[in-house]
């Protein structure tokens, strides 16, 4: 087992698409996993997910749905299904997603937070077919800001068929960060390959956070060493962005154990690792 980095570590970026018990209860989730999320791995019992956290030395995981009903005909988990899965284990922290093309998406977010107890909002501009700086989304951002919840955006490259790579360019989030200074924005996947641009945003805007869930070449250890210690100097995380980086694995596209080991191998100080694995996420989620 990997050594623990303090207690209470959180994986800020997981997708519950392979949980077998949920597929048995909601058969449409099989199609969501195979045809919308495009994951080919075998469905696993819930216990495997929890053991993954154990092996990685982490306590809890953020579960991310994506409501792409308009663009793909169905969501990857509804908010109700996320809440249902969270009820099966207190180690899960559920996020909501809303369809940006649904005229009632603000109300949907209010319900998800107020009635279902979800603690953040996940949006994927490419898959959901919108521009982050489209002002039509500003009421949604304002609502998230009012509710005090973070928004985690897919950023950077995507393998998603039919979606342009450029749809995830991080500079598209600058206006949102500027217009909503109290809204906490997490850009996923280090916005790779635009890590330098994502770092520039985070350096300028204290409400921009990045998550580590990036893997596009080689293996987690070699890739993160490239993206986080060659594309930018490792010192930028330690000295400037230690309070704006959270651990994320992108499980099950990457095993939590492998991404956790890769982050721990970067050479960050124990204090910085504690922020990345635990304290920054806890602060974003209002758990402190």
């Amino acid at each position: 087992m990997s050594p623990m980095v303090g207690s209470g570590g959180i994986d800020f970026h997981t997708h519950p698409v392979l949980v077998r018990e949920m597929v048995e209860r909601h058969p449409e989730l099989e199609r969501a996993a195979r045809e919308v999320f495009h994951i080919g791995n075998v469905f696993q019992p819930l216990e495997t997910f929890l053991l993954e956290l154990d092996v990685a030395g982490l306590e809890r995981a953020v579960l991310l749905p994506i409501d792409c009903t308009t663009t793909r005909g169905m969501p990857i988990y509804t908010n109700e299904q996320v809440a249902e899965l969270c009820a099966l284990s207190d180690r899960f922290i559920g996020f909501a997603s809303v369809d940006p093309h649904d005229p009632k998406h603000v109300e949907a977010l209010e319900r998800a937070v107020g009635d279902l107890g979800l603690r953040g909002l996940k949006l994927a501009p490419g898959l959901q077919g919108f521009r982050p700086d489209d002002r039509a989304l500003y009421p949604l951002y304002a609502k998230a800001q009012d509710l005090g919840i973070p928004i985690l955006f897919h950023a950077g490259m995507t393998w998603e068929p039919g979606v342009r790579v450029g749809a995830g360019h991080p500079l598209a989030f600058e206006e949102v960060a500027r217009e909503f200074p109290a809204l906490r924005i997490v850009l996923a996947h280090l916005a790779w390959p635009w890590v330098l641009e994502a770092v520039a945003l985070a350096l300028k805007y204290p409400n921009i956070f990045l998550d580590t869930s990036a893997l596009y070449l080689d293996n987690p250890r070699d890739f993160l060493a490239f993206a986080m210690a060659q594309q930018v100097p490792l010192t930028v995380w330690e000295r400037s962005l230690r309070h704006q980086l959270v651990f994320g694995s992108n499980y099950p596209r990457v095993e939590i154990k492998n991404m956790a080991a890769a982050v721990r191998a970067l050479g960050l100080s124990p204090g910085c690792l504690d922020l990345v694995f635990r304290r920054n996420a806890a602060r974003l989620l209002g758990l402190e």
Partner: protein
Amino acid sequence: MIIRLERVEIQTRADKDLVDLTSHMERVVAESGVREGVVYVMTAHTSSGILVTEGLECLERDVLAHLERLAPDQGAYWHNRYLDFDGRLGFNAGAHLKSILSGYFAYFPVSGGKVVRGSRQRVYFAEYDGPLARTVYIQVLGLG
């Protein structure tokens, strides 16, 4: 002629893990009704293995440590790339190579309705990329 095939699901609990399947195998043989024949134990996964060794914790650790030396998880593998059919990168060539080294099945004779094996021999499911729920097939063939 009796042919019985049983699927067994095993929940492994660690990245590397050895799970003793001997009692599973003996139960399937006993329930099959085969008196004289053979039993095979096979993993359905290419990042796991089936191996036979003595049932000692020290040996279990030595086996896994030696396989790690022969086929380390970290390496400059061709498999470290995006696999579109899986929607993710591979990067577990070390587990696949360990699987080849340990093999994917074991065979034992059955005589008098019991598995014929050495007193120290135990049959193990070997996990090289866990934790995962894994499938093992146990097949008994013979005369009742």
